[in-house]
């Protein structure tokens, strides 16, 4: 099977981007340099093409019931135009994916939108259909029809405001509104994956180029997206959790707050048990004291060499200038300040447990 390409692929090529295979999509990883792109988002504004993310729309009288059954958070608390973070779990509580769930504004005919991670859209579409038996609900996978742009950074509002008919001052965080941006019908959400204020703009794939070009700022690739999210301790599906290779439940992954045990969802009973007993391990922030860069797959040990876990994500933090990482560690070793070792090319390097997010925002 060939790689899926985003509608903006040729535009990125003209801009001199380098590309990578991510979740079956050929996506820009770097336009100028990760450091430059990362700094643009932290200090001013940057734009990301995240059209590799899935879009699934769920509508009908029983849409709420289906969303409640298949996501861990309580969708009934969402009013039209609101969103929250959530997870999809198996019967045993292991996470299949994580997502934002949007209850669409009343101006839109549809009810819910959620955003499976790259390459997960077909699996999630199937899962939603498989559980729709007897329900009055439609499930529509619009991943190919939509393009998605993330505009992130302290100057995002100032850049977007003159290009849209929306009153951005009136849009709170975690909201979704419908408006016209650069003459294109867009759904504009005040969400993101960087820790900065910003917007995610959903528009028809064939018109995304108009919106992209109008938002004149630093284009950013998946490289900077990764360093930005890791500074915030945000999870990367497929790496910080994976149903086969890194099977983890939301409590272990540190997102227990999106598990609403008062609702009936797949995985609830297993998670209730884990909530009572407490997880044995939890995703933990580390920073290296010795010189070196922690990378996924590197071992974490005690100072005397006892194996404790494995790094799932690591990098040199461009903002902090220190090497940072995430690893699943036993509860007794994850107090902030605990001194451990990360094994880099057979050399144990001194590391300390740190609270996440690594960056205050």
């Amino acid at each position, binding site marked *: 099977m060939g790689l899926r390409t985003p509608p903006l692929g040729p535009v990125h090529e003209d801009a*001199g981007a380098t590309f990578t295979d991510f979740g079956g999509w050929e996506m820009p990883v770097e336009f100028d*340099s990760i450091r430059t792109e990362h700094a643009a988002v932290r200090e001013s504004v940057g734009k990301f093409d995240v059209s590799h993310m899935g879009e699934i729309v769920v509508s009908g009288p029983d849409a709420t019931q289906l969303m409640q059954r298949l996501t861990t958070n309580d969708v009934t608390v969402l009013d039209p135009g609101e969103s929250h973070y959530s997870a999809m779990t198996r019967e045993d509580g292991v996470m299949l994916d994580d997502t934002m769930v949007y209850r669409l504004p009343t101006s839109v005919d549809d009810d819910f939108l959620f955003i499976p991670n790259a390459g997960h859209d077909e699996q999630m579409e199937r899962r939603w259909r498989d559980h729709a038996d007897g329900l009055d609900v439609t499930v529509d996978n619009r991943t190919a029809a939509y393009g998605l742009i993330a505009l992130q950074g302290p100057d995002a509002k100032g850049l977007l405001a003159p290009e849209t008919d929306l009153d951005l001052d009136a849009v709170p965080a975690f909201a979704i509104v419908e408006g016209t941006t650069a003459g294109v019908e867009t759904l504009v959400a005040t969400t993101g994956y960087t820790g900065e204020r910003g917007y995610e703009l959903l528009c028809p794939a064939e018109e995304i180029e108009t919106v992209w070009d109008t938002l004149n700022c630093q284009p950013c690739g998946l490289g900077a997206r990764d360093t930005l999210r890791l500074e915030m301790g945000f999870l990367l599906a497929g790496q910080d959790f994976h149903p086969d290779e890194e099977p983890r439940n939301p409590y272990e992954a540190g997102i227990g707050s999106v598990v609403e045990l008062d609702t009936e969802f797949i995985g609830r009973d297993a998670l209730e048990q884990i909530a009572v007993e407490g997880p044995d391990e939890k995703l933990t922030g580390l920073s290296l004291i010795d010189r070196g*860069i922690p990378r996924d797959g590197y071992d974490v040990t005690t100072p005397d060499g006892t194996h404790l876990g494995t790094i799932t994500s690591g990098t040199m933090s*461009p903002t902090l200038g220190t090497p940072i990482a995430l690893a699943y560690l036993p509860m007794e070793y994850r107090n902030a300040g605990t001194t451990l070792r990360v094994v880099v090319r057979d050399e144990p390097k001194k590391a300390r447990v740190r609270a996440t997010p690594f960056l205050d925002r």
Partner: protein
Amino acid sequence: MSFNVPDDLRYLDTHEWVRQDDDTATVGISDFAQDELGDVVFVELPDEGDELTAGTDFGVVESIKAVSDVYAPVSGTVTAVNDDLIDRPELLNEDPYGDGWLLELELADESELDGLLSPDEYSDQIA
């Protein structure tokens, strides 16, 4: 995109360069290599006095996104390493043929230089 390939250097197909000065040689990575790697954030180099063998790895250069071994273009004894790179690894991006040099060594066998790529040959390789 075109990359700087100074014509007074010899190159290894793994993107290291070597500059001969009598019986010593300076070693670094090429402009193409630093661009491929992106922002360099960490460099691990041998110690002075270490013996390097042509074609074997002697250190590591890490960018934000990648880890890359670096290989000795020629054999010899390390006489100096670029300590500035410890605090300023970005010198490798900014000036790969100047301030971003990696190490200096005393050549064990000058004739090894003849087996390396000429600037034209290396330019063809990265074209």
